[in-house]
Structure formats: C-alpha cells, structure tokens
C-alpha cells in the first residue's frame, strides 16, 4: 500500500458567519474582504512545510491539486507548489503526486507536458502525473470552458501530452482544440515510457471507462469518506472486471480525511471544530454550481438522474454541511481518533474499497500549523507502518507508482 499526504491549501481563518454571509466558498467569495495577501503567504508556506515534513517522516507521496477562486483550496498553479516540493525533497524516496494540473483549462496543453517533464527531471523520476478534468466551478465557471466541450478537450489534451512525452520525432498536432505545427518537447520526463498517470474522478462512468482504456490509475476523490464510497468503488471494480482488467488494488486511489490524537476523546477536543469548519464553510457551495448543462456528457447525465445518484450526492452534500463532529466521525467522513481506532478503520476501509493508493487529507479546514504537524507525526509513527503491508501477501505490482520508488521498503529491508 502506498500512502500520500494530500493538501488543499485552504483559507484557515474564514469568519464565523462565513456561510451565512456569503453565497459560496467557490467562484464568488470576495478576496479583498476575506483575505490578506501577507497572511495568505503564510498559509502557502505552512502548506509547503507540512508536505515536506510528511515526506521527511516517511510518507510515500505528497499531493497538491488545482482549484480557482476557491477559499478552501487555492493553488491555481499546482506545479508551482510541486516545483518547490520536488526541490525540497531531493534525495528522499517520496513521490511528487500532482493531482494535478487541469487539462482542459491549460492551453496549449503541452504546457502541462513540459511542466510535468520538468518536475520529473527536478525530482529525479519521482513524479506522478495527475490528469484532472477539472470541476465545473474551475473549468466552466471560472476558466470559461464550454461545458459540453470539456471532456472532448480533456481527451484531446491527454492524447497530445502522452504523445509529446513519447514521440521520438517532432510531429504536427492537428486537434480540434489545439493545432501545433512543431511538437518537440523539451525536456522529456525521466520515467519511461512516461510518468504514471492518475485520473481523479467523482464516480462518473465516463471517467472509469477512460482510465481503463488508457490503463491509468483511477482516483475517487470524495469528501464523504470511506463508507459512502463503498457503492461507487464496488461499481468501479465491477466495471474493471467487465472491461477484462485484473482487480489490482493499485489501479485505484482514494482520498480520506484523517485526524489522529492520543485518544478518541482527545481527537474530538483537538479536531472537532476544524472538521466542522471544513464541512460548513469549505463545502458551502450551491448545488447547481457542480453541474452546469453539458458538464456531464449525455450518458452520465442520464445515468445520474435516472439512478437517483445526482439527487443523492446533492442531498449528501447538504446534509454534510450540517453534521456535527460526531456525525462526521460516525459516518466516516472523517476517520478520527486514537492511533488504534484510525488504524483499524482505515485498514478496513482500504480493504473494503480495494484500494492500493491511499491519499489522506491531514490538514483540514482551519487546522493550525502546529496541530497539523502533530497529526502528520502521529499518523506517520503509529498508523502508516500498519497500512503499508496491506496488499503484500497478494501478487500485485503497483504499476502506477514511480518505478524507482516502487520497492523502497523491500530494498531497505534487504
């Protein structure tokens, strides 16, 4: 099992009445009213410090992602963060997991091929290349991408990036959305034929199909936790089977919010308000923002509405905005408690979901720097070592992990 620390880089100090005063945490919260650039600079540096610390204490990977005009996560240039992380972790056996630069909103998309190749060179072949479609908020509302074109743009950008990394010859790219006469990428990635590709998704069938066809790792990024993910991941594994692929747990990734303290009671004292802050303020997003017409292709739209899934996701989000810490923990939106509690629940969750690449969000909402560092330490010392061997007695290879880092524990042991 590979375990990476995920960071969203949230605003940690939103006002108490934020969710009553403002329409949304995403797209329209006014920066000048809500934030001070000097203070935000501190948040960025804490974010980098926390991720580098996670690398030092033994996490397998460190993850950042891309959002725009979003007070719960504002790394509009994830590769800027990734660059600092790659440099700071030189010599460490940690993957730089970019989850990642958004394909349909980067024009021309070879910009991502170039930047990822730079990161792979700087890190010495430690890059995992996340290829997100982008949320409707980021891609359509903020970056002006026509919803019905978003997936087509994504597929085309993906094909171009993969070809640009691998082609031995200069080529012309005659795409629908990108036309380039002379593609001859400098630099090329260290990893051959290319860095592992992870595709983040929220349960849509089209994304499963895309990941399977291209043999990429599918990552279910949900804030609703392991229990709520069971149905989706069961659907994914059924799909993988029907597609004729093996049930290799490393083919899938999952994101889980986790907080660890010395005891369950201490966890509640330390983390309750930060978890509630996350769901009340950071998840304060009008439902219709998620699905402007055309953001889902026709098949996913139809499936979502007819199966009731679209309605269910909406109801879950609205309910989550009201949950108390205890409800969040009961429902496993957050896996919280003593090291023993967290170990037990996480191992069971990973087994149930059948996932080999776990991402844990350890800085949640308003969680201050010191507390985050403690959460990272406790997780690394008392949880992480117990998760690692999860799939060791099965014959799977993590084909979606940088090759140079794949067997680091085994090498260290021998």
């Amino acid at each position, binding site marked *: 099992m590979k375990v990476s620390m995920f960071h969203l880089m949230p605003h940690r100090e939103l006002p108490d009445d934020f969710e009553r005063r403002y329409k949304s945490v995403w797209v329209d919260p006014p920066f000048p009213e809500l934030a001070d650039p000097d203070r935000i600079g501190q948040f960025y540096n804490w974010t980098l410090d926390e991720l580098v610390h996670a690398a030092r204490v033994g996490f397998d990977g460190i993850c950042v992602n891309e959002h725009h005009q979003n007070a719960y996560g504002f790394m509009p240039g994830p590769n800027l963060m990734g660059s600092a992380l790659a440099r700071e972790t030189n010599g460490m056996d940690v993957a730089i997991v970019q989850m990642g630069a958004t394909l349909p909103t980067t024009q021309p998309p070879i910009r991502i091929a170039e930047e990822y190749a730079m990161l792979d060179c700087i890190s010495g072949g430690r890059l995992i290349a996340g290829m997100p479609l982008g949320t409707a908020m980021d891609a359509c509302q903020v970056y*002006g991408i*026509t919803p*019905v*074109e978003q997936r087509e743009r994504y597929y085309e950008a993906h094909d171009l990036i993969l070809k640009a990394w691998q082609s031995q010859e200069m080529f012309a790219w005659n795409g629908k959305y990108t036309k380039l006469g002379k593609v001859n990428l400098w630099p090329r990635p260290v990893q051959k034929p290319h860095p592992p590709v992870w595709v983040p998704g929220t349960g849509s069938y089209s994304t499963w199909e895309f990941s399977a066809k291209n043999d990429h790792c599918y990552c279910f990024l949900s804030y609703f936790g392991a229990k709520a993910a069971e149905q989706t991941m069961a659907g994914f594994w059924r799909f993988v089977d029907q597609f004729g692929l093996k049930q290799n747990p490393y083919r899938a990734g999952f994101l889980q919010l986790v907080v660890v303290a010395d005891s369950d009671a201490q966890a509640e004292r330390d983390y309750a308000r930060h978890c509630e802050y996350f769901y009340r303020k950071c998840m304060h997003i009008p439902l219709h923002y998620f699905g*402007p*017409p*055309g953001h889902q292709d026709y098949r996913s*739209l139809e499936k979502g509405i007819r199966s009731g899934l679209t309605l269910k996701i909406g109801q879950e989000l609205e309910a989550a905005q009201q949950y108390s810490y205890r409800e969040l923990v009961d429902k496993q939106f957050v896996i919280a408690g003593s090291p023993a509690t967290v170990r037990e629940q996480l191992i069971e969750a990973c087994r149930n979901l059948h996932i080999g690449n776990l991402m844990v969000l350890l800085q949640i909402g308003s969680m201050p720097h010191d507390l985050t560092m403690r959460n990272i330490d406790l997780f690394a010392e008392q949880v992480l070592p117990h998760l690692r061997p999860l799939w060791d007695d099965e014959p799977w290879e993590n084909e979606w992990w940088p090759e140079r880092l794949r067997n680091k524990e085994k090498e260290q042991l021998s």
Partner: protein
Amino acid sequence: MTATAGVAERRVATLGGQVNPRVLVAGQGPPVVYLHGAMGLQWDPFLDALAQHNTVYAPEHPGTTPGDPDAIKAVDDLWDLVLHHYDLFDELDLDAPAVVGHSFGGMIGAEIAATNPERVNRLVLLCPVGLWRDDIPVAQFLQMTPQEVVEIAFADPQGELAQEFLRMPEDPEQMADALIAATWAQACTGKFMWPFPEKGLHKRLYRIRARTLIVWGEQDRLAPPAYAEEFASRIGGARVERIRDAAHLPQLEQTEQVARLVADFLAE
C-alpha cells in the same frame, strides 16, 4: 416536447448527414422558420397563432432531438451552425423564408440573416441575445437555478405562467425525462453561448437586408430591453416594439398581442 394536433413531424439531414433534426410543421401560408431558445422546442400557443397565417417550420437545435444527443458533436462552432441552417432550409425547400427567433434562436436567426442575406426575407427577433454591454450585462442564465431564471425572465414570477415553467411532472420517469431534456437542451444551445452569448454578432449585423422586427418585454431582466436599440441601430430599417407586462418571453406572456404584431409584420 410532444406534438399537438395538426402538427406534423419531419426529419431532415444536415451537415452531410451528421445531424438529423426533427422539424415540427403546422399551418398554411408563407413559410416561417421558428428558432427556439435555450430550453429547447415546445409547441406553444404562440406557434399555434403563427400557424394560422403561415406554414411554421420549427426545427430542434442539433442534439436536442430525442434519441440523437450526440448530434451536437458534429457542430463545432457558429459557422457550422449557420451552415446547418442553410442545409435545413434546402431540405425543406425553403428558398428565403421568414425567420422568427426567440432569445438564443434570435441570435442564431440574426447570424443566418447576416451571413447570407439572400436566405432570409423577414426577420423577427423576440428578445434576442447575442450582444454585450458591460453596463447592462446579459444574465448568465446557464449558470443559474430555474428559480433564479424565473425571477428575471417573467414579468410576474409568481404568476401561473412562471409557475408552470417551474412545474415538473409527478411521475418519476417523466420527471427524469423532463429534467434530462431541459438540461441537455441548455448544454447544446449553451455550446454557442458559453460563458455568455457574445460571439461577435455585433460585427455582422450590418449585413442583414431582411426587414426586421424586434420585440422586447419591457420588464426583461435577463436581457435588458435597452438591447433592442443596440440591435436596431445595427440593422437597417429595423422596427422595435416593446411589450408591457412582459419580460423575456413576451410571446407567451402576451401571446395575443405579440402574435398579432408578428402576423401583421409578416403580412406587410
């Protein structure tokens, strides 16, 4: 969309057979092509009224014909969409029909009339979108809830017509059908309006030679009525009619008055 009595259906092939839209046809008299707005085609009382004096051809926008959602993929841009409409005219044996367009349909009608002025002999624009002024921005209605749209699109958001617009079928399957159809219609029309409907029409309007009538609801908050003059000032001889107690759907909010205005204009 269900066809009512006296309304016939035709299927035509455009863009080399890649798009096969359904066209609803009714009435007798000089031909009128009706281009629907962002929500898709509904056969409504205004079209009934129009069909009393004209042969009405009401095509469905590419992708919105049931069973053919992927047709939208064949229409890459506005240029394809304009050509699609000339193909459609050819298929229907319409040399130079009158074109009546509502909202998004008005924008497309104007594009068709501007690109090849010989293909449109009269043009009626009902609250068209397509122009942009920073001081009176057109509402970004594709990014709003239906309730938010009703607040700005109807003169009386509490009235029966507005409430009817919001009402969903009670049968779960029919409700799903309606929701999917409405969402996909906005997806397919939205392809030419995202993030807001300004695609350079202002540069082309001068080419229109068809006699043009512009109809606007006085209380339109979706596309402010001041845009009537923006259109009129760019289209030679265009006439503007403002409708009281109407907003963005004047042909449904004041059907009798608008139908008479349009019928008289087309008969002139």
